[in-house]
């Protein structure tokens, strides 16, 4: 009888130690990378929304603003935000000039103290309310990468006319047929990565623009990374200024064919 009691006590001790280890794993930190260029109007709004949703969800986070020498004073606004929200939550890592998205990610990752990295657009087309959903999806399946999709489930867009929708769906169909990537939205840039996965992928990718985001997913597949998807809504407020012209379509097709022939 005494022997059995000892076993129960030891078992209880082990269980409580396991419980402590589990709570330690809960200290995941999420670094949001915001590459900005001339986002003086939008940066405070996106930061306010991020702080709101992260605050409500209780996850540990930091926001890294990577400004590429914006002439409109984005950096000054970012400094004001840093005073308001604290320099542990808003981290500024500016660069001298516009150097491209891939290098912005590399630069951001170097200064990220979280174990997860969220990449998104700073122009309010991506809404931070989806970030807790990304986090939950990642925990649910232990995914290496969670991608926001506009093409599945509740996902959708606002502010696109028929021409834009047709081009978008057509391009996505061609991409699915040629690359069979296993993800429904390849050109989307609202994603959650494990930090080491993002590091591995960025150093392997060579393309620019839309094709860069596509290449990330394709290389992730090559490296056998698991990919989860969350439907998101994409509110395009700048469509009037950045029309999808013939040049962009041609460069997209060139990039797609390069990926087709080399991966």
């Amino acid at each position, binding site marked *: 009888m005494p022997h059995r009691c000892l076993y129960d006590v030891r078992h209880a001790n082990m269980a409580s130690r396991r419980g402590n280890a589990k709570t330690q794993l809960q200290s995941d930190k999420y670094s949001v990378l915001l590459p900005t260029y001339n986002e003086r*109007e939008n940066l*405070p*709004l996106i930061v*306010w*929304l991020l702080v709101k949703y992260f605050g409500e969800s209780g996850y540990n986070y930091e926001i890294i603003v990577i400004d590429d020498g914006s002439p409109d004073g984005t950096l000054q*606004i970012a400094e*004001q*935000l840093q*005073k*308001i929200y604290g320099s542990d939550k808003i981290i500024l890592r500016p660069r001298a000039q516009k150097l491209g998205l891939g290098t912005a990610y590399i630069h951001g990752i170097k200064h990220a103290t979280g174990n997860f990295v969220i990449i998104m657009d700073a122009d*309010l087309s991506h*809404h931070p309310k989806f970030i807790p959903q990304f986090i939950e999806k990642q925990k649910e399946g232990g995914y290496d990468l969670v991608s926001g999709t506009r*093409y599945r489930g*509740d*996902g*959708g*867009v*606002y*502010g*696109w006319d*028929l021409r834009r*929708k*047709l081009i978008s*769906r*057509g391009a*996505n*169909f061609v991409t699915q*047929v*040629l*690359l*069979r990537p296993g993800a429904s939205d390849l050109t989307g840039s609202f994603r959650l990565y494990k930090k080491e996965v993002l590091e591995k992928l960025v150093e392997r990718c060579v393309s620019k623009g839309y094709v860069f985001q596509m290449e990330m997913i394709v290389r992730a597949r090559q490296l056998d990374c698991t990919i989860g998807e969350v439907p998101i*809504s*994409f*509110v395009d407020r700048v469509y009037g200024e950045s029309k999808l012209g013939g040049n962009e379509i041609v460069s997209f097709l060139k990039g797609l064919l390069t*990926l*087709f*022939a*080399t*991966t």
Partner: protein
Amino acid sequence: MSHHTFRHRGVIKVRCLVESGELALCAAGGFCHFYFTLLCPIILCTMTKLLEWVFGVSLIGIAWGLVTFDLLDLQLPPRYKEVAWPMPIYLLVVFGCYSLATVGYRVATFNDCEDAAQELQAQIKQAKDDLKKKGLKM
């Protein structure tokens, strides 16, 4: 007697030919077995998408050519040839229709997020007021 020897030699020649044919077939079979069970997975795993397509299309092309042009003298019933001959065009047309239908359906069912846009507008107002209170000079 010489007639018998000639026929006997002829029979031996034919038998040799048949045996060497069988040997060749066995060798080919052995190679195919090796190719499909060992090399193929290795090649397929490291092939680019382009090579996968080239491989797949050439397999289908060879099969089509064999049936349509009777390259192996397989003596298939003429119905097979009639069905196989227009297959490539038929498959292309079917794929074209499928593509149009799929893209058309997806464009038609592309969600328009009106609510999200309105929510965003409301939150922008809220954010601007809150930030002004906190001291942000925009």
